[in-house]
C-alpha cells in the first residue's frame, strides 16, 4: 500500500465545510439501533464545542427507505424533503446536516436533480404549498454529520482523554472503517476523500491515534441493502454480504469497526451474532466479536464519556475487549442500568458469540 497515493486522492476530494450554525436532522432508525449516537453528536457539538446546532421536533423521515424500497414515487420523497428544507428556512438556517447516510444521499440526489430539471423543483414547490402551505429555500450547504465530526476531529483530539492505542502493547489500534454506500458512491465529489478511498472516517481514526486497515472487501456493502434485508426471502443475501466482509477482514485482526451509516453498524454488529450461531464462527479474540462503533460513539469514548451513558450496552457484540485495550474504566455491574439508575432488562446470552 502506497500511503502517499491515497493522500493524493484525498487532496483531490476535500470540501469546504462551514464551521458553525447547522440545522440538524436525525435518522429514523438510529435512535432505535444506537440510541446514544445522536444524543452524543449534539452533546459534543453543542455542549462541548459550543457550536450552534438547531433541531426541531417537526422533522420527519426523509422517505429514503421507502424510496429505495420502491414503495413511494420520487415526487413524494421530494415533497417530504422540501418540507424539511422549509423547516430549516423557517428556523433561519442555511446549513443542513443529516445524521443518516441515506438521507444525505437523498438530499444530494434531489438537489442535483433539481439542478438538472428546474421544472421539477417548481412542481415540488407547488405540491408542498398545496400540501401544507410551506415554502423553502434550498440549503446553502448539505453535510453528513460525520463530515462535521471529521471537521472537528482535531479539536476532539485536543480534548481527548484516551488515544486509540492498545495500552497493553503500546501499538495503535487497528481499525476497519466502513462508509455507507449513499455517502459518496452516487456523487463521489460530495464525500471527503471521494468514493473509492473515502477519508472521512480514516481522518478521525488517524487524528485520534489509530491505524486504518485496508482489506480487499473494504468497499463492499455492509449487507443491509434495504431490499436484501427487508424482504425476508432475501435475508440470506444480506447475511452473506456481511459474512464476505468479515472473512476478508479477519486476517488483519481488527480491534474495532467504525461506521458512518445507520444500517452498517447495526448489520455488522447483529449479523456477527447470527454468523456465530449458524456457522459457529466468531471474528474477535477469545470467542468475542469485533466491536462495531458509530463515529459519535467513538468520539465520545475518546473524550472520556462513560460507555454505559452513550448506549454501548445496546450493542450485540461486546465492547468490553475494546474498552480494556483503550484503558477505559467501566463498571460491569452498571452495564444494564439506564437513566437514574433504573435497572434495564438483561438480554439472554447467545450460545456461541461471547458477550461477557
Amino acid at each position, binding site marked *: 500500500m502506497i500511503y502517499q497515493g491515497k493522500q493524493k486522492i484525498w487532496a483531490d476530494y476535500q470540501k469546504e465545510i462551514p464551521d458553525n450554525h447547522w440545522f440538524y436532522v436525525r435518522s429514523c432508525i438510529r435512535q432505535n439501533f444506537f440510541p446514544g449516537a445522536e444524543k452524543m453528536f449534539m452533546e459534543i457539538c453543542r455542549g462541548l464545542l459550543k457550536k450552534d446546532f438547531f433541531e426541531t421536533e417537526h422533522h420527519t423521515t426523509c422517505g429514503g427507505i421507502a424510496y429505495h424500497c420502491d414503495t413511494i414515487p420520487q415526487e413524494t420523497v421530494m415533497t417530504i424533503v422540501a418540507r424539511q428544507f422549509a423547516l430549516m428556512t423557517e428556523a433561519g438556517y442555511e446549513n443542513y446536516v443529516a445524521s443518516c447516510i441515506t438521507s444525505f444521499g437523498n438530499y444530494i440526489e434531489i438537489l442535483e436533480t433539481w439542478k438538472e430539471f428546474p421544472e421539477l423543483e417548481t412542481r415540488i414547490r407547488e405540491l408542498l404549498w398545496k400540501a401544507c402551505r410551506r415554502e423553502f429555500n434550498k440549503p446553502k450547504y448539505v453535510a453528513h454529520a460525520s463530515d462535521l465530526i471529521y471537521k472537528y476531529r482535531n479539536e476532539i483530539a485536543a480534548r481527548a482523554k484516551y488515544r486509540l492505542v492498545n495500552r497493553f502493547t503500546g501499538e495503535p489500534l487497528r481499525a476497519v472503517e466502513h462508509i455507507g454506500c449513499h455517502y459518496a458512491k452516487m456523487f463521489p465529489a460530495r464525500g471527503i476523500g471521494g468514493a473509492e478511498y473515502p477519508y472521512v472516517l480514516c481522518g478521525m481514526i488517524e487524528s485520534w491515534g489509530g491505524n486504518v486497515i485496508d482489506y480487499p472487501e473494504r468497499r463492499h456493502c455492509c449487507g443491509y441493502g434495504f431490499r436484501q434485508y427487508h424482504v*425476508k426471502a432475501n*435475508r*440470506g*443475501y444480506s*447475511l*452473506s454480504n456481511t*459474512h*464476505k466482509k468479515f472473512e476478508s477482514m479477519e486476517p488483519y485482526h481488527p480491534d474495532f469497526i467504525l461506521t458512518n451509516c445507520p444500517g452498517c453498524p447495526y448489520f455488522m454488529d447483529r449479523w456477527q451474532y*447470527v*454468523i456465530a*450461531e*449458524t*456457522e459457529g464462527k466468531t471474528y474477535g479474540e477469545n470467542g468475542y466479536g469485533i466491536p462495531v462503533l458509530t463515529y459519535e460513539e467513538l468520539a465520545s469514548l475518546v473524550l472520556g464519556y462513560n460507555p454505559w451513558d452513550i448506549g454501548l450496552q445496546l450493542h450485540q457484540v461486546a465492547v468490553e475487549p475494546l474498552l480494556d485495550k483503550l484503558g477505559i474504566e467501566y463498571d460491569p455491574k452498571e452495564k444494564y442500568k439506564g437513566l437514574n439508575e433504573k435497572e434495564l432488562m438483561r438480554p439472554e446470552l447467545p*450460545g456461541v458469540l461471547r458477550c461477557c
Partner: protein
Amino acid sequence: MDFGFKLSPSSAINLDKVDLEKFEELHRAEPDVYKCMACGSCTSTCPANKYSGMSMRKVILALQRGKEKEAVSMMRNCMLCGKCTMVCPRGINTRHLILSICRIYEEDVK
C-alpha cells in the same frame, strides 16, 4: 439456531481455487483447445444444443473454470455428428477434442 435464513451459496468463480491439472493435460493432448475464441458457431449448429443444452463453447469454458461435472453432463448429449468441426473458424478438431475430454475426465464422466 434456525433463523429462517442462512448464508447463500456464492456463484462467483474463484480462479485461485480452480484446479487446472486435468485441463493442462488436455492442453498437452489438444493444444488447439486454447484457440477457442467463444464465437459460438459450434453451439448454434449443434443438433443436440436446442434440446439438451450441449454447447462445445460452454464445455471448453466450464473446464477452465473448474466446472468439470457441468461440462461432462453437457457432453453426454453429444452425438459426434461433426457439425461443430465443420464450422469452427479456428480449425479446432472438436471431435478429437471431445474424445480426449472423455479420456482425461473419465472419472467425471462416470
